[in-house]
């Protein structure tokens, strides 16, 4: 019986993680800066990064913390924004080698970000725990270090640089959503649906008073349900 060998080298994983870590530096830098400018202490920003390891969720969480939102809204917002990880984890569970036990799966789950998921699922054959550990190492510390530098530097950086870095996270989001939208009409339509709805909530009278966390929840559920109803994905993957 012939099998594709398992990808399970820590060194290879680490090397694959370095470009991700570099990308994370700039975004977490912005996160740290934004957190401190909104009144969080430096250690608070770093604590969030080291315990969450998620870009969109942290940025959304930041605005909820600052506005003193109820805990339920925080939990719901994180649930909706990060719901995509459930799909990625599900997919990753099929990709991991059989030798990876439940405890190790629980550890790997913590590092299952969009980019780490993307790189690991791009490997040929099953992936082992050593490869995953290597892959997660550099991005994890890059994310924490970027946050620390951004938080510490926020007060010394000139306003022009702070303003320019404010767009970094959105630049990253655009880099994630545009290529699939370019290739798939269904993704394009779901994206436009969600963007249109989000703009409506931002600008229309009355709707404008809905809090940002719930706007994201509403837009996501409606747009994704619309896509699932009218453009169900093919069974064979």
């Amino acid at each position, binding site marked *: 019986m012939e099998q594709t060998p398992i990808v399970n080298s820590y060194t290879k994983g680490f090397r694959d993680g370095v470009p991700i870590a570099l990308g994370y530096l700039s975004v977490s830098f912005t996160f740290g800066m934004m957190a401190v400018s909104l009144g969080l202490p430096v250690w608070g920003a770093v604590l969030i990064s080291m315990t969450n390891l998620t870009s969109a969720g942290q940025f959304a969480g930041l605005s909820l913390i600052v506005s003193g939102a109820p805990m339920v809204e925080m939990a719901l917002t994180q649930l909706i924004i990060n719901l995509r990880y459930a799909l990625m984890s599900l997919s990753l569970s099929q990709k991991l080698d059989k030798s990876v036990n439940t405890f190790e799966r629980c550890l790997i789950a913590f590092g299952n970000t969009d980019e780490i998921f993307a790189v690991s699922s791009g490997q040929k054959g099953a992936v082992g725990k050593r490869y995953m550990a290597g892959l997660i190492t550099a991005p994890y510390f890059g994310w924490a270090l970027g946050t620390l530098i951004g938080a510490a530097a926020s007060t010394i950086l000139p306003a022009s640089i702070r*303003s320019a870095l*404010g767009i970094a996270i959105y630049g990253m989001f655009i*880099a994630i959503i545009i290529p699939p939208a370019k290739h798939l009409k269904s993704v394009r339509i779901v*994206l436009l649906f969600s963007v249109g709805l989000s703009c409506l909530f931002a600008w229309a009278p009355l709707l404008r008073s809905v809090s940002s966390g719930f706007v994201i929840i509403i837009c996501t559920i409606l747009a994704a349900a619309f896509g*699932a109803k009218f453009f169900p994905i093919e069974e064979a993957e």
Partner: protein
Amino acid sequence: MDIPKFLCYVLVMAGVTYLIRMLPLAIFQKKIESRFVKSFLFYVPYAVLGAMTFPAILSSTSSVWSAIAGLAVAVALAMKEKGLLTVAMSACGTVFVAELILRFCLGQ
């Protein structure tokens, strides 16, 4: 700042985020059969990132014009399928230059 409340927020954020990642990996061994749920989950990242980016990106810098310039460059590079770092940093660079130009013009 109210430190206990802040720690409570962090705990909720980290706890929810971790559970979402951990539960399917550790417990859910059977594959999802519902085509609707699978499709829904497939579209979630695009819907969520789209709603988070627009229109928030327009107010992410100190001027809506520099934000539009940064957005245009980001979309153009993303259409060419450039990497995350390239797209994000080029958008930042564009905003920086656009604001220099704006300040120069307004200063005259």
